[in-house]
């Protein structure tokens, strides 16, 4: 038995078709070389079903055919990438924000806390060498104003920063929701397309890219779930994304997240109405990592206090600054009781410059707070907070009014520093600096703070911040290397290589030429057969 007359032309046409598909595929790959998330596609071809020849000479080849277009992708690397990119996102945010925090303190420099405190103490020392000089007293007041303004400014910057981060949290929640919506839509499209047994290569790439983006923002698990068999025998798989166990995307359904303003503050240092991130259906959301976690940690982190995360964020540093000004103002105003029981005196125990013999101690508090209209508060009004009428003042209540933001000199010092700075240990003695010396000695009093003297305290804050910053920088570097490494492996498998595509181009071009040649040859054969074989 022999093959039919036009059988050769059929084979050659199939060859042309396969080569053409190959060329189209090369074209598609090359076009998408820079498309993010794109995986290269490979043409799967095989020899088409042969015809059984019954005379014992074997099978008759029928040429080539395309069985599909395969997407080169290692799903394992996707899972790996997503589980690492969440930490990359988190530390990238923390690193950037910690740099910003450090910039607010501006240490070490010639305009940070250290300089301000040095100048304040220097002006106290200057006053001690000429205590009756109005110039020295005015200078002390100005340096004190500088000191208080430094704290005000740092506290305000912290608040701005907290507010900015809060806005970003809101935006990130919207971004998560939007990504979830897009993914759900793609799920539906992919499902519809693949029900018939096709593979939606490009749509899957798009979805993978969106999931990558989502994985950087928040901790997610993404996987396909097998729901059984379709009537046509194919697997019924649906794509699910969960955050800490609860599905945000379940096939074509989306559970949105919501940013809801808090009614009560988490930390007393917070600005009001910060956003709490929840499920839109009201359920509690646990955020374990991702950019959102980075922002929330810096915004809310109070070293584990009030149920916040262990991270040292803005509330932590606000609290530390508040503690500092409270203790500093209190010891300056009232003196301090040392562990051995000895008491040092404070500014309130001093006597004013123009006091007369027999006058009582001035009772003027050097440091107080700014009142509602932005003016320094008088000592008397400042003390009212701790006056329960029994005659005993509750200093804890009084000094808990002070925050870094409202820290100020008192009205008396502001209005008349010459007279009201009370540094004399006895009335009517302008050269007496007994109180001033006690105040100056406080600078080196190791019992002022748990951390030691005032400078030790701030040093502790700054180095704590420095170490945290350094740590976040290390983490970020590590995560960068890890994600880069995974991305590299992904690119190695899924990326388009121009050389390879050009190789394929040449390959398919030649195959096309060869198939065309076959057609030409058959054409000649048929010419002979039909036209010249005159019978």
């Amino acid at each position, binding site marked *: 038995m022999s093959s039919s007359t036009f059988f050769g032309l059929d084979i050659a046409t199939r060859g042309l078709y396969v080569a053409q598909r190959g060329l189209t595929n090369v074209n598609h790959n090359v076009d998408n070389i820079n498309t993010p998330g794109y995986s290269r596609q490979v043409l799967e071809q095989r020899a088409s079903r042969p015809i059984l020849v019954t005379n014992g000479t074997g099978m008759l080849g029928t040429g080539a055919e395309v069985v599909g277009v395969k997407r080169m992708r290692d799903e394992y690397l996707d899972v790996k990438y997503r589980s690492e990119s969440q930490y990359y996102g988190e530390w990238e945010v923390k690193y950037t924000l910690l*740099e910003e925090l450090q910039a607010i303190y501006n240490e*070490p420099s010639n305009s940070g806390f250290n300089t301000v405190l040095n100048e304040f103490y*220097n002006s106290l020392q200057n006053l001690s*060498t000429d205590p*009756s000089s109005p110039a020295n007293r005015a200078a002390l007041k100005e340096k004190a104003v500088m000191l208080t303004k430094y704290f005000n400014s740092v506290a305000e910057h912290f608040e701005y920063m907290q507010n900015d981060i809060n806005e970003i949290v809101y935006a990130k929640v919207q971004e998560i929701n939007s990504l979830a919506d897009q993914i759900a839509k793609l799920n539906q499209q992919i499902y519809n397309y693949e029900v018939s047994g096709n593979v939606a290569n490009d749509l899957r790439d798009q979805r993978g890219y969106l999931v990558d983006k989502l994985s950087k923002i928040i901790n997610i698990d993404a996987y396909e779930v097998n729901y059984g068999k379709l009537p046509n025998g194919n697997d019924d798989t649906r794509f699910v994304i969960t955050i800490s166990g609860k599905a945000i995307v379940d096939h074509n359904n989306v559970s949105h997240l919501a940013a809801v303003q808090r009614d009560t503050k988490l930390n007393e240092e917070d600005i009001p109405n910060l956003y709490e991130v929840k499920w839109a259906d009201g359920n509690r959301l646990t955020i374990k990592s991702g950019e959102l976690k980075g922002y929330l940690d810096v915004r809310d982190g109070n070293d584990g206090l009030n149920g916040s995360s262990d991270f040292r964020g803005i509330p932590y540093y606000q609290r530390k600054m508040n503690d500092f000004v409270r203790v500093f103002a209190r010891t300056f105003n009232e003196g301090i009781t040392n562990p051995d029981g000895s008491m040092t005196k404070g500014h309130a125990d001093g006597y004013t410059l123009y006091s007369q013999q027999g006058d009582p101690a001035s009772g003027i508090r050097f440091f107080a707070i700014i009142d509602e209209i932005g003016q320094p508060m008088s000592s008397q009004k400042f003390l009212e907070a701790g006056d329960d009428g029994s005659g005993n003042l509750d200093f804890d209540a009084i000094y808990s009014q002070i925050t870094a933001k409202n820290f100020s000199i008192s009205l008396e010092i502001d209005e008349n520093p010459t007279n009201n700075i009370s540094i004399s240990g006895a009335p009517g003695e302008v*050269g007496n600096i007994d109180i001033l010396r006690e105040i100056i000695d406080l600078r080196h009093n190791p019992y002022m703070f748990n951390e030691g003297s005032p400078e030790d305290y701030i040093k502790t804050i700054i180095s704590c911040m420095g*170490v945290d910053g350094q740590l976040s920088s290390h983490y970020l570097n590590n995560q960068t290397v890890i994600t880069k490494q995974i991305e590299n492996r992904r*690119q190695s498998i899924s990326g388009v290589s121009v*050389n390879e595509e050009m190789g394929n181009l040449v390959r398919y071009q030649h195959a096309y030429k060869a198939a065309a040649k076959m057609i030409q040859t058959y054409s000649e054969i048929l010419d002979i057969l039909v036209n010249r074989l005159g019978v």
Partner: protein
Amino acid sequence: MRITNNMLIDNMMANLNRNLNRVSNYQNQLSTGKKISLPSDDPIIASRALKLRTDVAEIQQFKRNVNDATSWMEITETTLKQIGDVMQRIRELTVDVSNGTKTQDDMDKTKVEIEQLKTQLINLANTTYSGRYIFSGFKTDKALMDTDGKFLIDISKNEQIFYEIGIGDDININVAGCDLFHTGDAAEGEKSSFINTIDELIAALESGEQTTVSGMLGKIDSEINNILRVRSAVGARMNRLELTANRLDDDNINFTKLMSKNEDVDIAEAIMKLMNEMNVYNASLAAGAKVIQPTLVDFLT
């Protein structure tokens, strides 16, 4: 491993960026002169820097205090010397008129001079330093005594003014007027025992009794001795001030050096490193340009 074009570009960009980061780091160091710009660059350096800055600022303040103390004590010392000179002159005059050959006329002349000297002594007791009475204890705004030698203020030996010249290191810079011009603490309106001695001498001269006059010598000598005692105490304290000033100068240099060592950049080293990083950066740029450009496309015609 299969290498794709984007891998090459991504890796090269990542490496270039890393190199550029290092270049920028050294450039930063050179332009600021500091090893670190944020505490997180090196928390240890940062916290030491804070400590050393405080130390240096304090030392400089203590130096200013020492200078102020020195000026005050120099005035005190000069005044004490003048008081001593006046008393010496009074003693000479007293010795002169008590040798038995002097007439009442001589005594009267001596009396007039001693009255002048008494006024001078009272003026010296009210000496001021930049507007502050140096012998008035804590009441530096009030004169010590009136023209009769009566105290205008309560004054006690305890009214010692201290300047801080080191951490926990104070120095007493004043001499309370009662220590010099009186025995023990004095109350307002009380007569200075020192001026009283002069007044007694004047009375003796007026009376013309030579034995009484010569009998005053003992009292005058004891006052002179008292002045010498106070002077030597002041001298000793000035000595201590001088030593402290020298030590503070040394400390200032040492701590400034330490501060610089801790946070300042070693310029030569930083420049070397910058150059090195620049070379690496240039090399990676050149290599990148060569590696990435050609593909098979360039050779297909």
